[in-house]
């Protein structure tokens, strides 16, 4: 029940080089796509973007421990990296950011970063913060009723933990020992509101104590620690031992969204200092040190991913916008108007 702190060292041994490289590649792939989204936004071609930069490690860690298409995900808007590992493509997300008809998330109906794709059991997500946690419980309950051993991932920012649905979801999942992974990506800010004004304790993992479930705090910039925490929590859930609350301490390396300017509420020094905590840089240094990745490998990987990205962007840009009257479709199954 205690809040446990997992450190990188303890679990390095258990991850093979292939997994480590795959993890790095997944993080890099998301980062490059994310950066491209910002470029499109600044070019005026994408009215909005909300970023996962700085949050990638924990998302990749969990996604790599899920069975894509079998396990379930009820993510939130920063989970770009998670969706890519589960099977969605850079093109899918570019279609969304460019508001195209073929956007698999919503057909261009929702803002980008409102993820959803039935093919990969990623449920549709809207904007209201927190609702998805209860959906995750319902998904897990349905699995329980059918006797399946699937697990359900769900995530939220620390700001979202102040809302009622967070409590109702943890209470319900813990009462019924449901196979739900509650991941809080704690970047210390809800838009401009610092954690001290949102909650009384620094660690969201403490909240687990109210429900008698494990509360795990992990350095979200430590990819290996994240992987191990994810693996443990997924195993626990899959074996019927109930939910876990995992808090990943992450950094939001951008403004809240393309509509926000964090310089209004954070000093330049603090913003600059956080860059040193970038999990991608730290992981690369770590892998080079471990001899799992050379500088050459990394550059090659990057070049290959950029190629994929350029092609995806080209295709997405060529894709059509939705037909205006299609706005009337899919209100109800029978398309009542």
């Amino acid at each position, binding site marked *: 029940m205690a809040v446990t702190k997992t450190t990188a060292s303890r679990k390095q041994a258990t991850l093979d080089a292939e997994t480590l490289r795959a993890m790095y590649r997944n993080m890099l792939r998301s980062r490059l796509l994310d950066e491209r989204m910002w470029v499109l936004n600044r070019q005026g071609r994408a009215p909005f973007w909300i970023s996962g930069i700085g949050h990638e490690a924990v998302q990749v860690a969990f996604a790599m421990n899920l069975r894509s298409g079998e396990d379930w995900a009820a993510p939130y808007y920063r989970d770009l990296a998670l969706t890519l590992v589960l099977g969605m493509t850079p093109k899918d997300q570019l279609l969304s950011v460019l508001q195209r008809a073929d956007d698999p998330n919503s057909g261009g109906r929702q803002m980008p970063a409102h993820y959803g794709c039935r093919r990969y059991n990623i449920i549709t997500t809207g904007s209201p913060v927190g609702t998805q946690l209860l959906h995750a419980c319902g998904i897990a309950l349905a699995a329980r*009723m059918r006797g399946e051993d699937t697990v359900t991932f769900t995530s939220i920012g620390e700001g979202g933990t102040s809302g009622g649905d967070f409590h109702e979801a943890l209470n319900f999942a813990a009462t019924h020992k449901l196979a739900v992974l509650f991941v809080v990506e704690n970047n210390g800010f809800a838009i401009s509101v610092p954690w001290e004004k949102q909650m009384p304790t620094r660690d969201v993992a403490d909240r687990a104590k109210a429900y008698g479930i494990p509360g795990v705090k992990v350095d979200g910039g430590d990819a290996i620690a994240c992987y191990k925490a994810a693996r443990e929590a997924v195993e626990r859930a899959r074996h019927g031992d109930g939910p876990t609350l995992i808090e990943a301490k992450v950094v939001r390396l951008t403004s809240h969204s393309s509509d926000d300017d964090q310089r209004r509420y954070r000093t330049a020094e603090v913003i600059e200092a956080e860059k040193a905590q970038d999990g991608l840089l730290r992981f690369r240094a770590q892998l080079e040190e471990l001899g799992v990745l050379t500088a050459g490998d990394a550059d090659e990987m990057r070049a290959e991913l950029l190629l994929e990205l350029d092609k995806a962007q080209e295709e997405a840009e060529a894709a059509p916008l939705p037909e205006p009257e299609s706005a009337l479709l899919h209100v109800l199954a029978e398309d009542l108007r």
Partner: protein
Amino acid sequence: MATKTYLEAIRDGIHEEMQRDERVFIMGEDVGAKGGVFGVTDGLQKEFGELRVMDSPLAESCIVGVAIGAAMNGMRPIAEIQFQDFIMPAVDQIVSEAAKIRYRSNNDWSCPMVIRAPFGGGVHGALYHSQSIEAMFCHVPGLRVVVPSTPHDAKGMIVAALRDPDPVLYFEHKRAYRAIKGEVPDGDYTVPLGSAAVVREGDDIAVFSYGMMVHTALEAAEKLAADGFSCEVVDLRSLRPLDREAIVRSASKCGKVLIVQEANLAVSVASEVAAIVAEDCFDSLDAPVMRLGGPEIPAMPYSPPLEHYYLVTPDKVERKLRDLAAY
């Protein structure tokens, strides 16, 4: 065919559908051993077990949110809200989530579920056990809202709701539970959602209503019949969508229109029916549209003189009908 109460008819429908379809389950406060505060789910937990008839925590957002998740994962949940008055904490899950799941995912996902709740007053329920706040949901695209008024429809519509691919709010008038009895066919049948029913034919005045008020309207219509005025009484049954054609048909035929509901009138179902008539029946109207509903007060008070003052009674309906007849 057997004669059953409105309550029994609902229970029968749920019971048969649970037997037929393993995906159907119920979640709500006190639905298990107690069988619900009115007894609608009486005996179901014994038959189907604690997982399929699940006592939930006292948390309405949880009840609906969990049902939504289960619906997305292949189930057909019934989320029971103990009183319609207590649906408010679940409004976010209903309006922001359930109603928008198909649309926002461009048809990739759907949310087939039923939210049941008793509404209405006249049972000494006071401010928070008497409300009729269905109008708030009737504005919301992506939802279906239905209210049966007879045991026949109660069963046919709960079954239809459970087979519908979209979220349905199914509101039950709590005074009807035991007061209203009627013939209920045995076995499997459905009453289509989205359609109104003419429950009494007539030529002079079209009366539109739903829930318990249909019976009140019928009572008043009977009195006018004695004086040679014939009222057509239409049970709206589906409040979202409204059956526009049925409304226009009866209103045009009669030329005079009264809308009767228990809820207060401002921005309500009665407003929408009146608006439809004003839009589509201009050429056939012989009198102003009239509405009769609860007063514009926050809810139905407890003390008998106050509660009675609130209620839309057959007398009040009759008076309105005579005004219209005389116009």
